[in-house]
């Protein structure tokens, strides 16, 4: 919001874009009644969210996407990726004065969609155990299990200065 307030003065047309992105995010989070959305929609929403963060963080935030291997019409519960990306920014990118790169990789392995989000971590941060971070993770894990049963999962790993969260779920098309 502070970023948008700043942009309203200096670059009104960019502020307008940011408000549109934010509206989409609000709509998605307020109207989470749909059980499933397509991965394509979910990725669009993730990009909108990252667009807002990029305005705030400037050159400190870089994102690399490698998600072409996953069919866009695969179904997922809505707002699965955004909270994980928010964690990656809050705990990974923001504490670094020079910023860093978030990687989003998607693949299909044996009928399972696998999506990884990787971010750098600083020595001092206790990324894994941070309360807000854990709550977001558990929430997503639960929603994946609710939607797909035991065929879905979420794992995290931290080593060599990187934090990685991996989600898996069956490759099913939107009806």
């Amino acid at each position: 919001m502070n970023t948008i307030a700043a942009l309203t003065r200096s670059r009104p047309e960019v502020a307008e874009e940011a408000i549109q992105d934010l509206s989409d995010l609000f709509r998605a989070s307020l109207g989470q009644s749909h059980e499933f959305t397509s991965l394509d929609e979910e990725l669009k929403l993730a990009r909108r969210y990252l667009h807002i963060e990029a305005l705030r963080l400037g050159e400190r935030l870089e994102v690399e996407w490698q998600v072409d291997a996953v069919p866009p019409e695969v179904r997922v519960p809505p707002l699965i990726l955004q909270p994980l990306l928010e964690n990656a920014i809050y705990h990974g990118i923001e504490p670094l004065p020079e910023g860093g790169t978030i990687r989003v990789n998607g693949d299909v392995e044996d009928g399972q969609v696998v999506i990884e989000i990787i971010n750098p971590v600083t020595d001092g941060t206790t990324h894994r155990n941070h309360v807000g971070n854990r709550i977001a993770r558990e929430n997503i894990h639960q929603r994946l299990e609710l939607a797909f049963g035991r065929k879905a999962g979420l794992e995290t790993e931290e080593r060599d200065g990187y934090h990685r969260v991996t989600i898996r779920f069956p490759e099913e098309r939107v009806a």
Partner: protein
Amino acid sequence: MKVLVVDDEAPARERLRSLVDEFEDCSVCGEAANGQQALAAAGQHQPDVLLLDIRMPGMDGLEAARHLQLLDNPPAVIFTTAYSDYAIAAFETHAVDYLLKPVRRERLAEALKNARRLTRAQIASVQATDNNGNERSSICARVRGGLQLVPVADIRYFHADQKYVTVGTPGIRVLVEETLKSLEDEFGDRFLRIHRNALVATAFLAGIDRDPGGHYRVSLQGIEERFEVSRRHLADVRRRIKSLQG
């Protein structure tokens, strides 16, 4: 009134700058994106007031505020934050001014009008409500009217001599007006007491030997000096060295 704007986010600095510039008696004399830059800019521009973001990468606003108090004529500090979890009630009771982002023009005007210097007690109370930054990342020394920062990670020893404590790294020797006791309390997990007059960095402990007079002394990586170990701390020091080698 000269204002220094400190925030890690460029749009936030930009907005504060344009708000401040609207006030007739105020002008922005500089900007900084983190605590280290803020201290350097404060030395260079001699601001009357800092608008200081709390959560920043590297050195945060609370630590920068602590270091600024060492200046002979410290600027007033107004904290800005987007997070209400910095115990706003505590700020209020101690009359430290803080502004929630996005900062409102009326609140900024009021804060600038009342801009006041922080006292040590206020900083301590703010520090107590901040759950991340209890330990400083750097020690700050007054050097010829300015401030010199010494990263704690580089420090090999603190050595007390009467009123002052010498802080030593491979390239720097500076005096600070702090007590060994308070340094030990703050950095107790990184520094080991070896004598009534010295703390040494456990990570850099190199070895222990006896001088011709029969006194035990430790050596530290990266520096020549050796430091006497008192009888009282000898067993503890030996144990630490052994565990590092093992």
